[in-house]
C-alpha cells in the first residue's frame, strides 16, 4: 500500500533522450499501465523506478520519500522482467526464497512464505522443479511470486507477458489483475499492447518519444484522445488531413462545423464506430465505394473509398448486405479536430438514421 510519484524525471543516454521530463502520480493500490510503441522510453522509465538506471535529473518518491539515491538492492520495489526472469541454476523454491534468505528469515518462516506465494500464483506444487521444466507462462507466474513474496511497496512489470501466445496472455493478464487486487499492491505495468493496457489498467500513461502524451482512465484515453499521437495509436481511427476556414471544414461533400474559428491545417479524427452507413443518395453524407470487406466474426470492417477524403475504415453489422464496389453513403456522427499547438476539439453531429437493411440489395 504505497504511492509513487515521478517528478520531472529525465534520462539521457549520450545524445539520446530516452525519457523527457515526465511527471506521474500513482495512487495507493492503483494499477497504472505505461503504454507506448517500442523504443518510446517505457522500460527506461520503469528501470529508473527500480534503480537499474540512474536518472539524469528529476526525482522519484515512494510514499513521499525520495529514493533516487537509494541503490536498486535497497529499494522497496520488485520487478517482473519480460524474459530470462528465473535463475536457471536454482529450483523454483530457491528462486522465490532467495530474497527471503537475504533478509535472514527463519527457515520455517521462509517455507511458509514461499508456499503462500506459490499458492497465490496457482502453482502450489512447483517448488522442486527447475525453471527449464516450466512453460513460459509458468515461469512468469513464478517470477511474479518471487516479486510478491518480498511484499514490496511497488510492483513493476516490464512487458511480462509479451513472449507468450495470445490466449495465455489474456489468461495471465486476468490472473495478474485478480492477484494485484487481492494483495492491494501499487503496480506499474509496461506494455506496447493497447488491448492489454485498456483491459488491465486503472489509468494509462500513453508515452511517445520519451514523453507522456496522456494520463487518463482507459475509457477517456479511447474516447477523448488528448493528442494526435494517442488518437492514432489507440484503437482504430480515421485521420483525415483537412483545411479549416473560420468555423467550417469542407471535406468532400460535407461541411463540418467547428465551435472555434481558425484558419489553417487540421486533422479530423473519426472512429469507425462513429460513422453511420446510409443510402448512397443521402445528401448529408459522403458518397463512397466499398473497396474491401474484412470479416471479423461478429461484425465486418469496410474500407470505403471517398473522393477527396480518402479511404475510410467503417464497421458494418453482419445483417447489412454489402458487396465490394457497391456505392454507399457515410455519415459521421462524431469527430475530433486536432490542430498543432491547440487542444483537440470534439464535435458531435446530429444523429442520422442508419441505412435500412432493405435499402441494400
Amino acid at each position, binding site marked *: 500500500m504505497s504511492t509513487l510519484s515521478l517528478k520531472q524525471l529525465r534520462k539521457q543516454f549520450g545524445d539520446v533522450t530516452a525519457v523527457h521530463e515526465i511527471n506521474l502520480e500513482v495512487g495507493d493500490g492503483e494499477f497504472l499501465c505505461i503504454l507506448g510503441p517500442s523504443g518510446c522510453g517505457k522500460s527506461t522509465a520503469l528501470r529508473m523506478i527500480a534503480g537499474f538506471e540512474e536518472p539524469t535529473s528529476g526525482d522519484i518518491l515512494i510514499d513521499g520519500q525520495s529514493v533516487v539515491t537509494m541503490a536498486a538492492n535497497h529499494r522497496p520495489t520488485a520487478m517482473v522482467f519480460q524474459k530470462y*526472469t528465473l535463475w*536457471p541454476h536454482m529450483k523454483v523454491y530457491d528462486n522465490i526464497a532467495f530474497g527471503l534468505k537475504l533478509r535472514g528469515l527463519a527457515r520455517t518462516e521462509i517455507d511458509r512464505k514461499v508456499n503462500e506465494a506459490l499458492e497465490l500464483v496457482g502453482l502450489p506444487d512447483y517448488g522442486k522443479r527447475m525453471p527449464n521444466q516450466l512453460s513460459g507462462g509458468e515461469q512468469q507466474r513464478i517470477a511474479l511470486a518471487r516479486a510478491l513474496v518480498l511484499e514490496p511497496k511497488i510492483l513493476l512489470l516490464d512487458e511480462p507477458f509479451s513472449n507468450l501466445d495470445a490466449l495465455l496472455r489474456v489468461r495471465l493478464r486476468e490472473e495478474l489483475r485478480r492477484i494485484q487486487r487481492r494483495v492491494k499492491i501499487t503496480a506499474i505495468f509496461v506494455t506496447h499492447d493497447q488491448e492489454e493496457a485498456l483491459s488491465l489498467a486503472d489509468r494509462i500513461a500513453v508515452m511517445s518519444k520519451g514523453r507522456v502524451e496522456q494520463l487518463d482512465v482507459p475509457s477517456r484515453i479511447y474516447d477523448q484522445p488528448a493528442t494526435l499521437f494517442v488518437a492514432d495509436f489507440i484503437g482504430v481511427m480515421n485521420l483525415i488531413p483537412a483545411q479549416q476556414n473560420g468555423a467550417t471544414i469542407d471535406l468532400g461533400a460535407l461541411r463540418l462545423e467547428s465551435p472555434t474559428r481558425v484558419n489553417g491545417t487540421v486533422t479530423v479524427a473519426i472512429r469507425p464506430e462513429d460513422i453511420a452507413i446510409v443510402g448512397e443518395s443521402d445528401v448529408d453524407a459522403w458518397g463512397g465505394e466499398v473497396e474491401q470487406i474484412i470479416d471479423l466474426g461478429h461484425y465486418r470492417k469496410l474500407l470505403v473509398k471517398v473522393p477527396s477524403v480518402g479511404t475510410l475504415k467503417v464497421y458494418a453489422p453482419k445483417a447489412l448486405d454489402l458487396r465490394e464496389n457497391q456505392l454507399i453513403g457515410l455519415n459521421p456522427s462524431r469527430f475530433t479536430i486536432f490542430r498543432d499547438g491547440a487542444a483537440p476539439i470534439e464535435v458531435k453531429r446530429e444523429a442520422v438514421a442508419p441505412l435500412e437493411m432493405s435499402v441494400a440489395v
Partner: protein
Amino acid sequence: MTTLTLSMRDRLKRYAAREGFGLFALIFLIIFIVLPILTVLLWGFAIRWRFPAVIPTEWGFDFWQETLSRADLRRAFPNSIVLSISVTLLSMVICLPASYAFARMNFRGKQFFLLSFLFTNAFPRLGLYVAIAIIFFRLGLVGTFAGVVIVQLLNTLLLMIWIPTAAFQGVERSLEEAALDVGASRLRVFMQITLPLVFPAVFAAVLLTFVNTFYETYGALLIGAPNVLTIPVIMFPLINNQPIPQYGAILSLVLFAPSVVLLLFANRLLRGGYLTAGFGV
C-alpha cells in the same frame, strides 16, 4: 548397364554428401590424434621397436623403472605442480574480474585491450621470451620462482580473458538485475548468480590453463633454469640428447594421467545438467 552405373555413382555421391563431413572428421581424428597417442602408448611399453615393424618387437616395463627413479624428475614434479597451481590461481584472480569488466562495461579502448591479448599470443613465443628474459635479468627475476610465475601467467591471459568474457556476455543482464532487485549486493549477485551460470565455461578455461601451464616449456626453460626446473624442462634435453623415445613416451603417459582425470571430472560436472540448461523462456 549404364543406368545402373549412373545410379550407383549417384548413390555414392549422395552418400558422400550426407556422410562426407563426418567421414572427413573421422579420418582427420585418426591421423592427427589417435595415431600419435597410440604411438606414444606403444613406445611407453616397448623395449625394442625398429623400423619396418608395425608394432614393438619386445615389450616390458624396464624404462618405467629407469625414468621414474630419476632424481631430477622427482625434484621437478612438486615444482611443476606448485607452479601450475600458483599460476592458475593467480590467473583466476586477475582474469575473472577483468573478463567480467570486459563483458559488462563499455570503456574506451575495450576492443584494443581484448585484441592486445591476441597480439601477444600471435607474437613468436621465443622472441617474446628472450625480450622478457633480458628485462627479468635486470630485475633479478631470472632463475626465481616468481619470474617463472610471471612469464607463465602472461601465457594464460588470452585463454583466461577470452573464454570467460564470452561466458559473462552470455549471462542475461536481467538475471543479475533480478537478484539485485530482491536485495542482493553486487558481490553476492556475482558469486551466487553470475559465477554459477558461467561455471562450465570458466571451469573449462581454468582446466586448460592448468594443463597448459603444466606443460609450458620455453618460458620455464629461459627464465627458470637452472634453479627452477619443471618436468617439461627436464624432458626437453632427455628427449633431445638421447635418442630414447621411451623417456618421452613414459613421461607423456605419466603427465597424461592427471589431465585425463581432470577432464573426466569436468565432463561429469558439466553433464550434471542444469548448469547448461534452462536459459530459455
